[in-house]
């Protein structure tokens, strides 16, 4: 069987690429060694955030993606009807500083974002509880981001894949890809899998935290590393928290390259009732032991933001690995070393939000259409990616 494009990895990024390509009329096969949407995608909170990004290419991608999601959902609804339900909530975010020292940097950060078109409205500290009645009184500054949204990542990835199948594409689980075959000219002609060869004109590496290993197997290594994240889930509560609420030091943690544990509270309700408390960031390779110290930090910071949560039972914790590049930018584009090999990875903890624009950009580049945003910052041959690999 021949496919125009094989997508390796059925997480939200692979699903979004496959979906955008299917819509563009490309025949796609998605392969995953496990079940779709079961690794990094199943370990996220479903953040679709513009608030946590400083002006620059990632914010541009985030803004494009935030614009794209509602129309993508509309298209899924046309294809799938009720099966397109992905718990989309344009609830907005509220970022708060809780120390005097953090107040001005938060306001400055918001001003810089406003200058490039982000809706970021400073809220007087004493008015923050109008937005979140249970918030700690010790808020020193707050910014409201109406564009921040949330969705349920597994539902989103599964809906995208269902639409791919509906449009004639193929999704196969339990098929591990071990490498690529090239023709005499060095161009990708097939992928080698645990279930035989799959001929294709191009292959997209959407293996998330395992993208580095796949790129090496494909003969073109890039430096993508895992970063561990843990999320706590409480018992279901009546509506208590209205927005995505986080403390301003999250912004520093996201952009940091430190290996040490970093946590900052991101607290939000879900439509089913439980409150999600994220999120830690830790460079520990693929070690996935649960560490009580990490859980304790998450709990402390959540209770500091919302004292009312102290009495709420924690039902479970889940952890996962997020793919990051040394320069903290996603990788989207062709690999110049192996014609026909493409990468769509390195989105770290923002992949859910960035998936919509990533898929679209990938489809534009692969089909030769005019890209809707500048792809240059995400190109594969950046020194940070090639040298470290």
């Amino acid at each position: 069987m021949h496919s125009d494009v094989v997508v390796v990895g059925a997480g939200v990024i692979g699903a979004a690429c496959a979906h955008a390509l299917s819509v563009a009329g490309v025949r796609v096969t998605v392969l995953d060694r496990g079940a779709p949407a079961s690794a990094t995608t199943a370990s996220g909170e479903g953040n679709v955030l513009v608030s946590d990004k400083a002006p620059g290419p990632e914010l541009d991608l985030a803004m494009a993606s935030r614009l794209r999601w509602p129309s993508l959902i509309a298209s899924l609804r046309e294809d799938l009807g009720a099966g397109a339900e992905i718990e989309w909530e344009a609830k907005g975010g509220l970022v708060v500083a809780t120390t005097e020292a953090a107040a001005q940097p938060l306001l400055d950060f918001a001003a810089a974002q406003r200058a490039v078109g982000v809706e970021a409205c400073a809220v007087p500290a004493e008015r923050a509880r109008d937005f979140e009645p249970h918030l700690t009184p010790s808020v020193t500054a707050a910014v409201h981001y109406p564009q921040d949204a949330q969705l349920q990542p597994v539902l989103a990835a599964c809906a995208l894949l269902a639409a791919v199948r509906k449009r004639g594409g193929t999704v196969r689980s339990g098929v591990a890809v071990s490498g690529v075959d090239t023709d005499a000219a060095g161009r990708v002609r097939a992928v080698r899998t645990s279930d035989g060869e799959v001929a294709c004109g191009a292959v997209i590496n959407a293996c998330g935290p395992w993208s580095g290993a796949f790129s090496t197997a494909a003969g073109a290594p890039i430096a993508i590393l895992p970063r561990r994240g843990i999320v706590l889930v409480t018992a279901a509560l009546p509506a208590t928290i209205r927005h995505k609420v986080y403390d301003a030091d999250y912004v520093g943690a996201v952009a940091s390259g430190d290996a040490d544990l970093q946590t900052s509270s991101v607290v939000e309700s879900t439509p089913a009732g439980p409150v999600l408390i994220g999120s830690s960031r830790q460079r520990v390779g693929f070690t996935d032991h649960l560490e009580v110290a990490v859980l304790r930090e998450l709990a402390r910071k959540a209770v500091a933001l919302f004292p009312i949560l102290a009495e709420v039972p924690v039902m479970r914790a889940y952890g996962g690995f997020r793919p990051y590049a040394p320069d903290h930018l996603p990788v989207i584009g062709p690999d110049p070393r192996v014609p026909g090999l493409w990468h769509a990875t390195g989105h770290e903890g923002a992949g859910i939000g960035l998936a919509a624009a990533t898929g679209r950009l990938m489809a534009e580049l692969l089909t030769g259409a005019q890209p809707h945003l500048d792809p240059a910052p995400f190109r594969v041959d950046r020194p940070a990616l090639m040298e470290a690999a």
Partner: protein
Amino acid sequence: MTRRVVVVGAGPAGVSAALAAADAGAQVTLVDSAPTVGGQFHRQPAGAGPDKVPGGSRLVEHPRVRLLTDTVVWTVEPLHSGHLVHVRTGQADGPGRHGEALTADALVLATGAYDRALPFPGWDLPGVVTAGAAQALAKGQGIAIGDRVLVAGTGPFLLPVAQSLVGVGAQVVEVLEANGGIRGWTPSALVAGRGKLAELAGYARLLATHRVPYRTRRTVIAAHGEDRVTSVTTAALDREWRVKPGTERRLPVDAVCVGFGFTPQLELAVSARCELVDGFVEVTPTQETSVPGVFAAGELTGIGGADLAAAEGTIAGACAAGQAIPEAALRKARRGRTFAAGLANAYPVRPGWRTWPADDTLVCRCEEVTLGALRTAARERDALGVRSLKLTSRVGLGLCQGRVCGRNAAELAAGYTGGHYDPSDTARRPIAAPLRLGELAEDPEKENT
């Protein structure tokens, strides 16, 4: 330095393990969530002392055993050498619960098993309970779950449950064994279990005295009622447990006790990374798991009853304390395993149960996920693994965290798709017991031993 052994679970396996380890010179902490030792098998009336349980008095008087009752282990963390066992002591909803982190050079998991319920229309009605719950109520409180009670399921455990019910004054209208009963026992199991046969004969006499019919290859397939169960439909089953059409019978009852074998309480073993085989913890002859320093005993390693559990506990405790395998216990354990294998063979859960629930039957009661919704998630959302099945259907995400529905949902979904639903994934609960966010935020008080 004295070895520190932490034993989790104070049933027959855990009590034996604690005694064996302490006798071998180790400093032992025995943890159980109940107010007293005994576990499910030796469940005691409320307020009873530990002297009613085999080994109980010696346990509480032993200078090297610290007994922590009313205590849950909420997680186990690996250390460079050994484990840190995080516990909370006190009533879960009370204000005075306190936390502690116990350092274990060796850890013995004896967390036991709980009985399995299969979904059928009406199984969520008040008055329909697990056999274990009915027995706990009878033994612990002296209360009968109903006046006219049906007992249904599979396995010899149904008989002592019926006995307990009769003992507290209930009328047991029928005991329904979905398999073939004693006729399914292999000769080797009959030999290994000859001690058990006398016990079973005793139950049979009791049932006869009280005119309780015992029927094989029959079960309850529906419970009816408005606010609680008032009647049931029972039916004959073929060898695969599909209902034989035309054999349905309606029976008035006010309570139903169901027990389709047991599910091991695996979450701590799964958190500790112990390898599983066929849904049970794999152990060496010393009862050590695939993780050095972590031992498992009792129903975690296979369903075999109290005697086998006690023998395994003795081995695990002695070996955890650094001693050689006690030979007598090893012989007992071997005999017990032959019997256990015979039981597993004679009382399997057959796949035909998946035809009992209707589309609107709840599979997951906490999150109210129906069979129809589960099928839609598995098929239309392509939820081909446990994690995506949970997150697309919400099955197993509620209060019980999949303890009741996890295995059932995995087996149902496997019938709908070509997906792989690893049953051990349904026991992945890194937080093994709920705790309040405020408790989690506290600094644990370290044990000073």
